[in-house]
Structure formats: C-alpha cells, structure tokens
C-alpha cells in the first residue's frame, strides 16, 4: 500500500476557488485527518481523492498510479481507483440487505460466489455485525449502519480508506466509543486512511497526523501533539482548543524572544518567539486558558512569568473546573482554574512557556469579538 501524493491541488466552483494549491503526502498505513470548519475545503479534497469531482488543476497519485493530473489530462474515474469510502450519511443502498450491500463491490470484481461468502462474513464480523447479515439497512440503528458502511468499504481490501465525517451522525456518547474502536480497527488493518472531520477532539484522538484547513488553505500538517502545543499560525491556535489573543507591537526583538507592548494596556512583556520578528511588527500573543493561573496576589508566580492585572467579571463552574472571565483593558481573557474563590482585582500569571507569538491576525469572528468586548 503506497503513499498518496497530492500536488498543487486546486478546485474552483463557478469562479470561486474553494481549494488553493494544496500539497501533501499521506504515508503508507497512516491515519491522516483533514480538519477544519465547514466550507474549509476538506470534503472537497476528499472528493477529489475519491474521483467524485475533477480538480481544476493539480495532481493526485497513489504509488506509481496517477489518478488525476493536469499535465496530461489524465483522469481515472472513481470506479477504477480501488478505494473504500464511508459517507457521512453512510449511503447504504436501501433496497439491498447487508449481505447484498457488501456483495456488490465483490460482484463487480467478478469474485466467485464461494469466495464472497467468507469475505462478507469476515468484514461484518470485524465490525461485530455478522449476526445481522440478512437485515436491511433501515432495520439497523445509526451506529450499526455506520459500521456496516465501514464493512462495505473494507470488504474488497481497497488501497486507501476514505472517511467523510463518519461519526458526526452518532450521538455524543456513542461517538466517543466509536472513535476508539475505529482507531483500533484501522491500526489492526494497517490501511492508509484519510479522515475528514470538523471535530477537533476526534482528530486529536485518532490521527497519526492532522492537516488543519481553513478557507481552502492548508495551515499546518503535523502530529496531534504538535498541532495543539505548537500551532503554526494564530488561526490554528484559535481553531484547535481555545486560546486568548492579545494584540501588540514588537518594540525589541532578539534571537529567541521579543519584547511586546500590549495594545490594551501599554504594558510591556517578554515573549519567547519561534519565528523571526523585528521591531515595529504588529503581532498577536496567544495563550491557552488552561496554561495560565489566577491568584489574588500573584505571590506564587514562578520566575519569568508574565503577570497582568485583571478584574474578575464572572466565575462559572463547568464541572471538574472553574472558568473565569477576566477583564483586561477592554478585552476579556478566559482562564481555567481548579478553585473558584478568586474575585475582584486579581493577578493573572502567564508562565514563560505558555504564550506564543504570531504575526497580527484577525482570528476572532466579528460576532464573537462583539460579545467579548467589555461594554461600560
């Protein structure tokens, strides 16, 4: 099972570009996730890999087989790509039993009936539904249908498995279990898998690597830990988990760190920076609510921490922890804490390793910004 190589893939619909020159490689046996909000181009990308749509330009190949290429106008139709795909709606053929649903791809491949029986049984057994082989799809629950769809996509041993938000129609509890189960099944089979989801938790829990997409661009391709801990851009930081953002200007930059004057207060802080910044750059400082501490006096702050003066606006108990809305200038900063006793004027402690520095970006939607602004 070879690598899937996608080069400069671009797609336009009626003049609007929904996918901008995307390039990435999916390694053999990898669980690769396309993650992003709706309309970011992730499903388009999957459809292009499956061959359900033709790209405007670019190339997709698996091993030495070119699926589609703008150089020689080659296009392999979906039926000749030998992929397995699970759709969001499962797309089980309603007029066929489970056995017939699974037999269809085998019949097309002219596999003798005698060989089909064990294949169908094995595939359904893998998803734990062999006993329902004679049922029709509508007689199954949503979770069962989803597993049948998976069995149907696997029964003919395709080269690559494509999953288009397969868990999004399940209810929350079931989804969490299905996530673990699916990840294990994929690891057992070792099949190269492309997974599309808008659910970041799902992506973080299951993937070997995640590609974060937004507005038809691929922002970062990295393993889950890196995506969360070291988001490449402010947009990734905003989309994966939660982040607080403060705008500022660089007043002094040396190799590994930068001195930033915050716009809200004029306060000056030191932030370690991975990118290169120079004096005068407009920047955004990002830090996650769970990486920061709140204390009434700030006395216990570790050395090198940034300490900001804030006012506690609201305290909410959200189960297992407290969440604070803190007023800092005209902005609201969210902080998580295990205690809910801090009130009034307080000190926000941002440990040295918590903040990340990005070029200034509008990562907060206008609606959210309005809600977050402190009105007097």
């Amino acid at each position, binding site marked *: 099972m070879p690598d899937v190589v996608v080069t400069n893939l671009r797609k336009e619909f009626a003049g609007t570009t929904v996918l901008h020159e995307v390039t990435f490689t999916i390694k053999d046996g990898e669980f690769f996730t396309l993650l992003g909000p709706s309309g970011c181009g992730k499903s388009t990308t999957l459809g292009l890999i499956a061959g359900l749509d033709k790209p405007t330009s670019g190339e997709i190949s698996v091993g030495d087989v070119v699926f589609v290429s703008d150089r020689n106008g080659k296009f392999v139709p979906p039926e000749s790509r030998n992929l397995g795909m699970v759709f969001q709606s499962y797309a089980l053929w309603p007029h066929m039993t489970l056995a017939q649903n699974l037999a269809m791809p085998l019949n*097309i491949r002219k596999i003798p009936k005698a060989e089909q029986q064990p294949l169908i049984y094995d595939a359904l057994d893998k998803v734990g539904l062999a006993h329902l082989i004679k049922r029709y799809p509508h007689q199954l629950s949503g979770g069962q249908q989803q597993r049948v769809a998976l069995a149907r996509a696997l029964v003919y041993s395709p080269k690559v498995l494509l999953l288009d938000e397969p868990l999004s129609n399940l209810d929350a509890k079931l989804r969490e279990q*299905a996530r673990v*189960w699916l990840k294990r099944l994929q690891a057992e089979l070792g099949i190269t898998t492309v997974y599309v989801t808008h659910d970041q938790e799902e992506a973080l829990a299951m993937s070997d690597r995640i590609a974060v997409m937004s507005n038809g661009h691929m922002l970062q391709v990295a393993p889950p830990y890196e995506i969360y801990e070291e988001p490449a851009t402010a947009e990734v930081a905003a989309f994966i988990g939660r982040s607080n953002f403060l705008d500022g200007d660089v007043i002094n930059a040396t190799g590994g760190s930068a001195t930033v004057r915050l716009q809200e207060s004029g306060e000056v802080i030191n932030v370690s920076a991975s990118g290169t910044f120079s004096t005068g750059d407009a920047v955004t400082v990002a830090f996650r609510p769970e990486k920061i501490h709140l204390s009434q006096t700030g006395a216990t702050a570790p050395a090198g921490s940034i300490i900001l003066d804030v006012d506690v606006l609201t305290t909410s108990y959200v189960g297992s922890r407290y969440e604070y809305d803190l007023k800092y200038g005209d902005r609201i900063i969210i902080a998580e804490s295990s205690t809910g006793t801090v009130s009034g004027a307080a000190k926000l402690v941002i440990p040295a390793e918590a903040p990340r520095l990005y070029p200034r970006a509008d990562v907060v939607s206008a609606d959210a910004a309005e809600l977050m602004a402190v009105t007097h």
Partner: protein
Amino acid sequence: MSTLSQTKPPQSGQKPALPEYPVPRYRKILGADRSSWVFWGTIIVLAVLVLAPVVPTLYQSIRDRPLYEVGGIFTADNYVRLFTEADFGTVALNTVIFALMTTVLAIIIAVPMAIVVVRTNIPGRRIFGIAMQWPFFISSLILGFGWITMYGPAGFISVEVRRTLGFLPWDLYSLGGMAVTEAVALAPIAYVFCSNALRSSDASLEGAAQTVGAGPFRILRSVVIPMLRPPVVYSCLLVFSLSLETLSIPLLYGQPVGISVFATFLYNNGLQSIDPDYGILGAASAIILVVTIALVAVQAKLLKDAKRFVSVRGKATRPRILDLGWLRWVSVAFITIYVVFGALIPILGLVARSFTKVFTPLQNPLLSLTTNNYLTIFQYPVYVQSIKNSLIVASIGAIAVSLLATVAVVVARRSTFRYRKLIEYLALAPNAMPGLIIGIGLFWAFSFLPFGSGQFIQGTLWAIIIGFGLRALPSAYGSISPAAMQIGEELDQASRVAGADWLRTFLRMLAKLLTPAFGAAVILTFVVMLKEYSPAIFLGSADTNVIGTTMLELWVQGNTGSVAALATLQITLTAIFVGIAGLLMKGKKDA
C-alpha cells in the same frame, strides 16, 4: 458500542496480509466508455424528437410551396399573405382577448380558493382539495361537450332559464363564453401552484404577525397575500400560454359562429380546406411557436426566481389555520358553485345525455332512457377500434415516454455529462409546442424522410404514439425529476467508489430506487395520453382514430348522444385505470 469485545485482536502485532483484487475494468466502445454512449444517445434521441416538428415548420414557413414538392424557393411571402389574405390579425386579436379573459377569470377563481382551502377553517377543506383534481380525469374537450349540453343555446339549463325568464342572459358561443369555460378548466392548475406555495410557506411569519396584534384578516392582507405574488404571477403566465394554444373549447364554441383563434385557424386551414395552403399554415405555426416558446421561457425564469423566494426552509411547520368567521360560509358557497356548476353539472349532464334519446327539460329524461348511444358505438368497428387505439397508444406511449424520461432525468441530474442542462431543456421543450403544431410539424417531418420512408409511419399508430408521447414527455420528466432529487447523491457516489461505473450505478441502484416514481409517471402519462387528441388530427388516418378524434367526428355529424357515450366511456376508463394502478402501487408499498 456494545460489541467492542467482538472485534478481533491484532494478529501478533503484524499487519495481516490482505488479498489484492483486480480493479474493475470497463470495456470502451470506439474509444468512449459505455456511459458516454448512453449520454450521447439520450441527447440525440431527445433532440431528434423535439426538433422533428419544429424544424420542418420553420422551414415550411419560408418556402413558397409544400415541402414535398421539388423546386421551392425561399420567400417571406407566406408571412405577408398570412396577415393580408388570411386575416391572421383578427385571429391574433381574438386569441389575445380570449387568453386575457381566461387568465383573469381563472385567477379570480383559483387564488381565493387556494387561500380559503389551505389556510382557513372552512368546512370540507379536504373534499374541496380533492375535488380540484377533477381535470385529471376529464379533458377540456369533454368539459366543452358537457357545457354545451347544459348551457349551450339548446342546452338543458338554457332552455329552462329561457322558459322562466323569457330570454337567455348568456351566450356560450362567444369569446366570453369560451373564456369562462376555459377558465373553469384551467383554474385547478393555478390553484395547485398557489396552494402548494401556501402550504410550504413558513407559519412562523404569521405567528410573528399575530404576536404584534394582527387579526386573521390583517394577517391575510399583510402577510399571506403578498407572499403569494410569485405563484400568482407564474400561474397567470401558465394559464395565459395554455389558453393561447388550446383547441377544444374554441373549436366547439367558435366554429358554429365563426370566431377563430390560433388553434382553430390552424385546424381550419390545415384540415377543413380541400387544398391546404401549406405556406400560410407554416407561417402561422411559426408565429404561434415563437410566442409560446417565449412565454415558456419567461415561465421557467419566473419559476427559478420563485424558488429563490422560498429558499428559506428550516423546520417543517404546519400551516396556521385562520378563522374567517361568518365569511367562511360565503367562501364555501363560492367554491361549491364553482365545483358544482363548473364541473359536476356539465359532466353529469353529459352522462345523462348518453343514456337518453332527447335531453331537454321539456320532456322528462327518464321517459326517453336508451342504451342506443352506446350500441351505436359498439356496433361500428371503427368506433370500437378508436377506443382500442386510444388504449394501445396510451399504454405503449406511457411506458416508452416514462422510460425515456427516467433516462433523461438521471443523465440530466446524476451525471457529469457536459450537456446535461441541455437534456433538461429538451425534455421540457414540448411544453412550448401546441398539440396541433406537433401534429402538423411531425406530418411534414415524416414527408421529409428520405426514400419516402415516412409513409410507413405517417397515418399509423406509431406516428400518433410519437406525437402524443412528445406532448406527455414534460409531464413524465416533471414527475420523475423530484423523486430522483430525493435520492441521496451519496448513494450513487458510494456505488461509484465501490467500483461500479455510471451505467451500472444507474441500472443497479437508481433504476431500482426510481421504480415507484416510474410507476407514478406511467399512470400520469397514460391518463394524459388517453385524453390527448390534437396531434392525431393531422397524424391519424381513418383507421387510427382515437377516442378524441372520433368524438369530434361524431360531434360534427350531430350525433351528440354517441359523443356523450364516448365521453362517459373515456372518463370511466380513466377512473378504472387510476383506481387499479393506485391499488397496485399501494400493495407494492406495503410489501
């Protein structure tokens, strides 16, 4: 997931060796895959069918002699003569007046009725809703017969009114009389559009009006009626263009008193004269065709815009029922008058006429009861043959047209074929072609075929099947298309990814899933084709009369009793067929 424990453990940490199966291959025919052949085949068949009547008509209109004669030259003379010698100007004026009156009357009947039936608490709403479907069973030709039987100069009710009042306050054989009857016939079409729009409108809009203190009449005036504008405008256009091309009622009412409209002009010039002037016929047809095509194009545009109007669909909401108070009894009376006097009395009169020797209030009809009218029909083989012909044409035609429409829908909606939009336009194009012009155009097309091969079709039932089928094609397409849209696109995508090419996906997936829609289309087109007759006026021969053309023939002979009998038979046949088909479809659904 309860079955987690049933999944197999990894086998000793090693990836299991998976079997490799060959990628399915599909043979190419002359370098193109087989699905492309289906795409091109569909578009070619449709284009030939649609263009066959149009091109010869346009061509004939600019030739100085009949197409089958050699040595013609191009000329504009036909158009000049059309307006000078043939007095086409008066005809056009009549047509426009007739169509305008019909449109206004039909809207006046349909729109209030739709509002009252769908949105208010009048009693018997369900029954009225069902009653508005009567034109499905009764053609406008039969309605015309019925109206003449009851309200014509010597009609049953006219005679009675004249006896009481001393004079008759109406004249059916006038443009006004035509318009009233045509409006009664077309009002249900406008009603269907408006009531659908009312049903799908968002009830929360009215809820919002109510919360700010608006009463039921205020809601009707300020919310419901303004929202109806798109469907009303659309049905105006639809009724207008349908009444431009209609033949039945102008033929029955206008012929005796010499009032001519588009369709009767074609009828007289093409059929009644001994030596038809093909140039004038062609020029008139071309003008009518251009007008109807323009109207249908505007309709299509409006319908698209109207859809944009209702694009905000969220939760399904039950339409709010408004209380009209005492006014509801006025509404009920109004609808009852329409249904009873418009449709019920004329049809019952026609049935009564078919069982009597003389049908007049001057003599108790029960004293002249007879079955002779039916015997006349069953005694003459030509008449029996026309019933058989109608049934043959409708059954073969319905299946053929529904098959073609299914393929056209699937190619237009579910393929990546470059010209799929064009397929939809072609399938709906016959909407813009009056039945008579389809008849004339195909007649010319057959005479145009090389080696005189058209002779083998001309005058046969096949010619009539083609003509009627073309007329019914848009209905079939229109009834299958929504069903196809409801089948999730992911079902065929799944099939494609699993290894089936487009054709196999169509045959194994879509065809099966579309079977109920196909059945419904067969029923619909069967009924449409059983009622149809106008293309057969030019395409038929003495041996290939259908019920409609036989009725006309008997009418001209003055044999009104047998006309009534045939009409009763046609309505009965339709009802029996729809009943049986409905039962069969229902049985299938239960299984």
